[in-house]
């Protein structure tokens, strides 16, 4: 296709307009809602003293004792599993880090790419390579 020829996307300028409404007055009230959210998110968290919370009732002590037994048992069992599987630190890191990828790393977003790996080269792989070696994508259409 030549550059002057119009297709369905270039020939319909109206397509570039957003076909969605926003609720009445939405943008007018936005600034106040943002300030309220900032105040809410940056407000210091008020905590009661630790002593008062833990020793308020014997039920807390019973629950803590049961929990301690469960955790100790779990640790002993997991030690046994670890010796059998002998997982490396790298394998654990794969699971441990999966949800703490920082938002400031745009490349990490592409890790969850939809495209599946394949043994064969797709048209997209070939086009990516051609662009990599300096050929403009527009040139493909002129062939």
């Amino acid at each position: 296709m030549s550059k002057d020829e119009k297709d369905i996307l270039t020939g319909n300028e109206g397509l570039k307009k957003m076909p969605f409404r926003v609720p009445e007055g939405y943008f007018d009230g936005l600034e106040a809602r943002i300030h309220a959210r900032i105040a809410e998110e940056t407000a210091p968290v008020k905590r009661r003293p630790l002593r008062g919370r833990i020793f308020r009732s014997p039920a807390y002590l019973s629950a803590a004792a049961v929990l301690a037994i469960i955790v100790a048992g779990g640790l002993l069992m997991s030690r046994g599993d670890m010796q059998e599987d002998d997982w490396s630190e790298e394998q654990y890191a794969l699971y441990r880090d999966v949800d703490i990828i920082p938002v400031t790393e745009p490349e990490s977003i592409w890790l969850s790419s939809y495209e599946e790996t394949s043994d064969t080269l797709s048209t997209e792989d070939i086009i990516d390579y051609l662009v990599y070696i300096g050929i403009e994508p527009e040139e493909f259409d002129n062939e």
Partner: protein
Amino acid sequence: MADDREIMSIYRSGDREGAFREIIRNYRERLYWHIRRFTCSHEDTDDLLQETFVKIWTGLPDFREDSRLFTWIYRIATNETLNFLRRQRTHGLSGSEPLENILYRKVDDDPYFNGDMLQRELHKAIQKLPPRQKAVFNMRYFEDMGYNDMAEILGVSAGALKASYHHAYIKIKEELEKIF
């Protein structure tokens, strides 16, 4: 409305709140539509837009002007949005159904849609694209953004983005030509 240079000048004068107010006025609509093209939902967009501005407010003291204000702001909004979609995928909020199918349906079900058939099919076709192609297509086609600006925002080379746009364009064109 103040431009980016004026906003930074207000900020440097010590008026952080004044600069932030101008940022909201200048960017609220642009960012709203930028995010909404990804989420297909007013409610999700509203939440992400507010969170984007909270991050801008808290990040402003650390903004060193190594990049332009415009690309820094878009980078925050884009990362917030793509991470939101990634969380929906990885935490199974979409169940066993692919997220693209859910987004595709959201266009049909959106109570705020007021376009024609061609516009509806265009926005449905966009939802079928992989994340990078979707981001590039939206920024290039609707916002007419340059490849170098997009490269700064997405942290990917301009060449790779050209290829992504090309793939996205062809896919959407073919999808629409099947119907119209």
